[in-house]
């Protein structure tokens, strides 16, 4: 069996390097949400490597790239517009409320 093509081999090595990095950095305490930002940043880098070199997305026809972009764009819609509610909703946490009993609106209860 012939040796693997070098670009693929390097991509694999880079992916393993990023895996080691994300695992190590996860144990380093960072301020605020930085741990998750770093972890997801590394995930994005890994995903881009797979998309670019394994799936050859950026050499694919514009149409193919549009399909991939559409999936991500619509995912962004789902998150962004849900955030308009969740980031501005001022209620006590749902888990802190008493469990509904279904008897809240009995006539004697008003």
């Amino acid at each position, binding site marked *: 069996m012939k040796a693997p093509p070098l670009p693929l081999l390097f991509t694999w090595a880079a992916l393993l390097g990023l895996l080691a990095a994300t695992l190590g950095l996860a144990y380093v305490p960072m301020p605020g949400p930085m741990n998750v930002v770093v972890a997801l940043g590394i995930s994005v880098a890994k995903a881009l490597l797979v998309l670019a070199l394994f799936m050859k997305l950026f050499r694919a026809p514009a*149409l193919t790239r549009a399909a991939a972009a*559409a*999936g991500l764009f*619509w995912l962004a*819609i*789902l998150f962004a*517009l*849900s955030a*308009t*509610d969740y980031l*501005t*909703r*001022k*209620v006590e946490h*749902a*888990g802190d*409320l008493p*469990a*509904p009993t*279904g008897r809240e609106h009995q006539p004697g209860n008003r």
Partner: protein
Amino acid sequence: MTIATVTGKPGEPVVATKNYLTEEGVTLRSWLLTKDHKRIAILYTLSITVFFFVGGAAATLIRLNLVTPAGIFTPDIYNRLFTLHGIIMVWFFLIPSIPNTMGNFLIPLMIGAKDLAFPRLNLLSWYLYVGAGLLALFAILVGGVDTGWTFYTPFSSMYSNGYVVLALAAVFAVGFSSILTGLNFIVTTHRLRAPGMTWYRLPVFVWSNYATSVIMVLATPVLAITLALVAVERLLRVGIFDPALGGDPLLFQHLFWFYSHPAVYIMILPGFGVISEIVPCFARKPLFGYKFVVWSSITIAVIGFFVWAHHMFVAGISLYAGLVFSLLSYVIAVPSAIKVFNWTATLHKGWISFDAPMLYALGFIGLFTIGGLTGLFVANLAFDVHVTDTYFVVAHFHYIMVGGMVSAYFGGLHYWWPKITGRLYPEWWARIAALLIFFGFNLTFFPQFILGYLGMERRYYAYPPEFQFWNILSSAGASILAVGYALPLFYLGWSLVRGKRAGANPWAATGLEWQTSSPPPTHNFDKTPTVTRPPYQYRPEAEPQDA
């Protein structure tokens, strides 16, 4: 391919014997294993008709119950009836109605292709649809599902006693049917257009179905996973959607409406496509503002995803989110209005003839406009608080879904009936049915606007006696509507046997589908057509639209 001819009755057009109805054989097996998009369209049409009348029967019983304030059925039966009506009509009639029947049949014909890109997926989609439909009927009829079509948690996940999991599984499966269809249409429209068929030469019907398919492919998976979560939650009693267990019921509603609001546009965009074909043909004029009509469809498909939480104004979302979604909901009225103005402008100074398809199309324009304008009412935060969960909302969406989409479905069915079957239907019967449907529809649903405004809540089996007058009007209208919907079964069925032979192009319409024989041969065209002109060239001397 050679076209053999048979001798018809004197004076009738000759007819191709080699057509898709007979070419592959006439055995049941040849139909159930077919890969021909036209045959699959017929399979869909037959099964959709069955579900339409099942859902319609439930609606009839609902209206019967509401004739008297005390109701006729028990509350349990009534809850099951509106659940049956909602689930069947939304997922087993409206969503697949035009795309899977006429879209399946016509998209390859209109773009000059021999079939859809993935014929096997197309057949798989039909089997998923039928399997899911039977499962849904079983779950609702035998297991008494009473959640309504919206499956709101925690009622659906914790308290309801019916076969909710089976009903969820059925909707999950029919979702994949619609994803496969959407995928097929998108890929076909991109990859299989005939030489010269540029994007701006595509009929609006193809554009509309393309926009619909984008929604199907990108919204339906969210519904599927959400319903799967509800099912697991119900089975395991763990609640991401149940406040008693630490979950958030609004999360369910966000995910559900992320699909179900765009799904409203799945249910109306194909109707826009049908109307955009019928109006130019029977006004004998090119479609006014072709590019505006086309891009308004695409805009609706995208902005349709930005408005979902207007279904949740009183559910406990933040006021800020309410404002954002209210404003975005106003925005989507713009592309919808653009379409109505363009159809109206197409009629202006046209040579209008009032054949049955045109009657349905004109009915569509009026009823859709009423449905759309009342949509602006409920997009308004303050007004929505007054009419949420009342018959005002019921009337609003029935004006869009039934007055709009079902009218478009019947209009399209009549318009392309000669192409699909090779036969002409009896024109006068068709006109009578169209008028009955229009009259019956308005009598059924206009009183519901008033009822809702006066405060009658939806989904209750009983109501205060002062609402009875309007309810009787509504139920009377429903009986007329039922006759109107049943009539085509008889005269269209009759035309299959006794109807006159249609010929290739009975309406003298433009469009590639009218250039091949009726019914078309299995591979649609003897020779792949080459397209040189924009669509709707009804008066070639009029200024060309193709810049």
